[in-house]
């Protein structure tokens, strides 16, 4: 049997000695809640009264018609409080923090969704909160920075390295190595040292168990395929866990193809040939790195997918062949965003639109009887600047210019 925290040779806990005792404390606390039947009930109850769980399963009639079948169903994590699946994990960890008796939480964020979720949880539970965010992401996800600050969090701009998600994680780890007595690190995805991948996957499994029940109840069958975008992998593992035992269901994870897999400017660790096994940020997995083991700069229009590593759990499923990994380019993603807005009246986050883009590419080859389930991990309001730029929206530009003039007057 593999050691705890290992998945097909991936995972582990490659951490400085100073953090060993703290991760052990977290492991024990997580073990306790997992074995406490009242915990999941309390979690579910909070998620159904503070947030909108279960999130709906929407039949997307217009997209179905547009592609002449297959049938499209969308799991609406965009309707979760704070606008993404991130809150599931954050509320779960918040309850663990209460049990551990800590008073301060820190987190990394890329898209800002995990940061907003953490700031929200901190406000509700009465914790002090500090969010680390790369300078590149601060600039492209500015609305979320505003909300984090309004929610009472301190947002620290990280100017080291590539100034994106990985650098925010490094900074959060450094803070934690100093302040672990009072502080819990709310890691936002199924990466990092044990027990994070297992713990985050556990909280996010709420998506998959709801979705499975909804498919059977609402549609009367399991989907032929399930699609989800993959940054670190938490929304994907969240929904996939509902279907991993069903051999007739194909699971498809969609990574950031950026400017194309041949361009070198992407964040596809599994779908491209550029990823290789390494150890960084506390765990072993596929990373985008050079021959020396130095991490490469990644690229994606979606800040939340713009990351060097991927969940060790997904890396294991990738090697087993039980999950298929694909990539969607920035261009395909913007097109998919536009189509989904116009056809369904849903504004997807750019991250989530990667799953849609891959579905739109593959749907024409599928049969009209097939049923597709898509995890819409978040809503796109946060991407208003990026999308407006990409679409070259003239009236938006005029508005911003006027606004800027008013501020500088």
């Amino acid at each position: 049997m593999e050691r705890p925290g290992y998945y097909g040779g991936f995972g582990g806990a490659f951490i400085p000695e100073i953090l060993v005792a703290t991760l052990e404390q977290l492991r024990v606390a997580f073990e306790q809640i997992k074995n406490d039947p009242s915990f999941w009930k309390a979690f579910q109850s909070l998620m159904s009264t503070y947030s909108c769980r279960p999130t709906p399963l929407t039949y997307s009639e217009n997209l179905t018609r547009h592609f002449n079948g297959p049938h499209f169903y969308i799991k609406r994590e965009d309707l979760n409080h704070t606008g993404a699946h991130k809150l599931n994990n954050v509320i779960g960890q918040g309850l663990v923090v209460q049990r551990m008796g800590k008073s301060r939480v820190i987190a990394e964020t890329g898209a800002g969704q995990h940061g907003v979720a953490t700031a929200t949880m901190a406000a509700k539970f009465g914790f002090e909160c500090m969010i680390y965010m790369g300078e590149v992401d601060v600039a492209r996800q500015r609305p979320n920075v505003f909300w984090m600050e309004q929610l009472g969090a301190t947002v620290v701009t990280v100017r080291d390295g590539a100034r994106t998600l990985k650098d925010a994680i490094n900074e959060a780890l450094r803070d934690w190595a100093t302040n672990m007595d009072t502080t819990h690190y709310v890691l936002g995805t199924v990466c990092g040292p044990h027990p994070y991948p297992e713990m985050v996957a556990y909280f996010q499994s709420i998506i998959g168990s709801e979705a499975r029940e909804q498919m059977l109840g609402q549609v009367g069958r399991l989907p032929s395929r399930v699609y989800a975008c993959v940054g670190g992998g938490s929304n994907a593992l969240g929904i996939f866990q509902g279907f991993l035992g069903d051999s007739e269901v194909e699971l498809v994870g969609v990574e950031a193809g950026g400017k194309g897999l041949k361009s070198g400017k992407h964040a596809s660790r599994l779908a491209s040939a550029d990823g290789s096994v390494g150890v960084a940020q506390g765990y072993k997995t596929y990373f985008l790195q050079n021959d020396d083991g130095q991490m490469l700069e990644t690229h994606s229009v979606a800040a939340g997918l713009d990351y060097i590593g991927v969940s060790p759990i997904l890396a294991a499923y990738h090697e087993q062949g039980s999950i298929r990994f694909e990539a969607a380019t920035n261009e395909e993603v913007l097109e998919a965003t536009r189509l989904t807005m116009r056809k369904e009246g849903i504004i997807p986050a750019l991250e989530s639109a990667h799953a849609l883009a891959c579905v739109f590419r593959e749907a024409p080859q599928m049969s009209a009887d097939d049923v597709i389930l898509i995890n819409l991990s978040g809503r796109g309001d946060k991407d208003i600047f990026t999308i407006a730029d990409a679409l070259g929206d003239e009236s938006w530009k005029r508005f911003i210019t006027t606004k800027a003039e008013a501020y500088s007057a």
Partner: protein
Amino acid sequence: MLEDYIRQRLKERGILLMAHVVVGYPDLEASFELVKAIVVAGVDLMELQIPFSEPIADGPVILKANQSALAAGLRVDDCFKFAHRVTQSFDIAFLFMTYYNIVFKRGEDRFFAEAKAAEIRGTIVPDIPPEEGESYLAAAAAHGIAPIFILSPTTTPDRLAYLAGFGRGFFYCVARKGITGAKTTFSSELDEFLGRCRKVTQLPLALGFGVSRKEDVDFLNGKVEIAVVGSQALRVLNSSGVEAAGSFFRGLR
């Protein structure tokens, strides 16, 4: 053997000094000059840090030096060549300090074989606890290089005893929580921590994190065998250059 070297040196002085240099910072030639100035100033051991893009145990000063060296195109090959050059030129003990991915990507056996060929005597890799380090430890042992482990104030007594079983050369004790580069207030709590370390090992103890003045070294004299000076020397280098860094070490005795 590294331990013998340390014991030998201790016959001549009460406490040894271990310096830390980021290879390739500010550039390869300047870091060679820096090594020279520091050796001449009388240090006994030196960590040569092979830069890594994600140095999670390092604070801003060393982090920026890592990034700057990598941005200038430094490769791991260059670091091995550099190590060879300094061990041929200077007669003190040199160790590699880096992160596990650098060892892993090169191949553990190759890494240690090449380190041995470069006459490196030990490795300090903060993100490889022994639980994850079976093959790392085997490769180090096969090539007769001491894998140095870190003992921290948060390490439980049981775990100190566990780590002690993997010790070679010396143990690197960190004076406080946190990362490199921050201030440390040396206090009696330290005695208690060092007492816990002594209980589990006969090996020499080095103490690092925040050692920055002669007073700190004097305070540690008689408490540990080695004082480790890292970020402060780099600050001196950044503000006043190579010669000043040499004088800084001379002033620590």
